[in-house]
């Protein structure tokens, strides 16, 4: 029942998102025909083009036509110019964005979890205070500022890493990692700071529970208590935030992708906006929004798997 209700809601939101995406791009100023057909085309050619692409139909019909194609897996293409298919863009660029997100999340979690454990174990000591202050500072650095500063330190000053030269995973594994580590760090530092704050707060609460006292009195070593007893019940909200962030970052990594010239989805979408390639914008925004909705849906489900009370709420 719970699952069904959430599923219906998911589908309704997806429909609303697709309608809004379509109307936003369709209602924006600019005649798509003018930018697609060569400038010397006759009015008859324009009319024929309009007819072929259903542009002479009422708005709702145009939307239905577009959705019908999307459902069949045809996300559209940009006519004229490069004649690029949206599905091809996805195939080439989604893996880059996903790799960026994956590396960023791994970096963030790899640092944040041990730091948060230490911080909560030493709550209210100078170590904890330093960690909290540090997390707060990192939280306040915008990602583009981090990107510039990191480049300056690691590429300009110490010449350790390349900048703005992306190497595909299929070409060279180490080259790929070297080219993704700076952009991923620019994202990971802010994420990690959020995770530290969140996990620390939840851990401190858990550590006050009776079963922790019990474990302590049994003489179980602190490391084991932190990792085996306290971490799991403290990680619910962390899990949710990871999900939300992953969904939000699919379209939110534009700045980092742009700065490091990564051939990712966000970068292409930004270029498409600048070039007013409306059909590409429509297709990509729809995919990103759908990704966000679906990731959040899965997080909801995961949450109710971990904590059954939600299903019966």
């Amino acid at each position: 029942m719970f699952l069904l209700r959430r599923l219906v809601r998911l589908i309704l939101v997806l429909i609303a998102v697709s309608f809004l995406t379509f109307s936003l791009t369709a209602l924006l100023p600019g005649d798509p025909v003018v930018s697609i057909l060569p400038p010397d085309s006759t009015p008859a050619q324009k009319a024929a083009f309009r007819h072929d692409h259903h542009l002479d139909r009422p708005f709702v019909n145009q939307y239905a036509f577009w959705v019908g194609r999307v459902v069949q897996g045809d996300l559209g293409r940009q006519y004229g110019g490069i004649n690029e298919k949206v599905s091809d863009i996805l195939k080439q660029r989604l893996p880059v964005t996903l790799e960026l997100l994956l590396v960023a999340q791994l970096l963030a979690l790899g640092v944040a979890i041990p730091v948060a454990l230490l911080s909560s174990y030493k709550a209210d000591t100078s170590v904890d205070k330093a960690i909290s202050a540090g997390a707060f500072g990192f939280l306040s650095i915008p990602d583009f500022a981090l990107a510039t500063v990191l480049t300056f330190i690691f590429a300009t000053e110490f010449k350790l890493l390349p900048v703005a030269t992306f190497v595909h995973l299929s070409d060279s594994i180490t080259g790929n990692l070297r080219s993704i580590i700076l952009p991923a760090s620019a994202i990971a530092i802010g994420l990690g700071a959020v995770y530290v704050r969140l996990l620390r707060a939840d851990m401190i609460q858990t550590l006050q529970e009776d079963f922790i006292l019990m474990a302590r009195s049994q003489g179980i070593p602190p490391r084991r208590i932190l990792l085996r007893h306290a971490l799991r019940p403290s990680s619910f909200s962390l899990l949710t935030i990871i999900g939300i962030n992953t969904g939000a970052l699919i379209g939110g990594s534009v700045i980092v992708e742009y700065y490091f010239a990564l051939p990712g989805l966000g970068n292409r979408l930004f270029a498409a906006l600048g070039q007013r390639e409306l059909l590409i914008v429509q297709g990509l925004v729809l995919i990103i929004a759908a990704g966000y909705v679906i990731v959040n849906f899965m997080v909801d489900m995961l949450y109710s798997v971990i904590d059954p009370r939600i299903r019966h709420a």
Partner: protein
Amino acid sequence: MLEQPQIAEIELALADVEAVSEAAVGQRVIRRRLGLAFWIPFLWLMLILVIALFAGILPFQDPTRIPTSGPLRINAMPFAPGHLLGTDDLGRDVLSRLAFGARVSLTVGIVAVGIGMAIGGLLGLLAGFYRGRVETVVMFFVDTLLAFPALILVIAITVFLGQSLRNVTIAVAVVSIPAFARVTRAATLTFSQREFVTAARGMGATNRRIVLREVLPNVLLPVASFALVVVAVAIVAEGGLAFLGQSVPSPKPSWGSMIAEGKGVLQDGTAPQDALIPTIVMFITVLSVNLVGDRLRKVLNVREAAI
């Protein structure tokens, strides 16, 4: 019963809001507990605010003037004669560009968040108080808006409506609506169940009166403390937009565009200060907003809301 679209957000906001019911007690001790971690960032923000407000009157040089006569000093270091913070790659005065750039950051930070808070707050208040169909419709709208990649939406608005301070402000306001609607709804849900609402209803108060006189004043405090987090996010968002060259058009200065303009001479190492100075100013400002907000929430006993 609560729907569970985004548990963490709602839950954290709810925890905040429940804690705020104790806020009346907290208010009495504000003065005692604020401390330096509040006052230093607060003073910095006041300084930036005064500079932004009076940038036109204060003796700053023209932020867009490229010197045409005399010795041309480009990328001058700070404390160069006549230029306290040096000059950029076109010889323009960095201090005055920062001062006029502060106007952009603060306008977006304050006005956009104000608009978002008014619209989102109203929606959340209606949803949380009337529940039922109103709530379903409002939360459906919020969920839909939230599904859009926020930065892309902001870029799209400025690309298609034109790059101007007004349009950037509108764009950032639009994407801040869902967060405010959620937090306000959560706060309203809690306060609508309190005894004073039942009492008011028992005395025959109309819904309208209960919302305006009983619920709204209570909801305002937690929502306002949440707003400071959004101000920081909005300043960063404008900076990112400017970094992409999509905020106020050049040559008008903005902190984000100053960082973008300086990134070339930062990467080749010839004049890293061009990008680093605006980066530091922006960092201190965002940190200050966060610190002031954090301090206020702690004193008012509001737990951190993650956004």
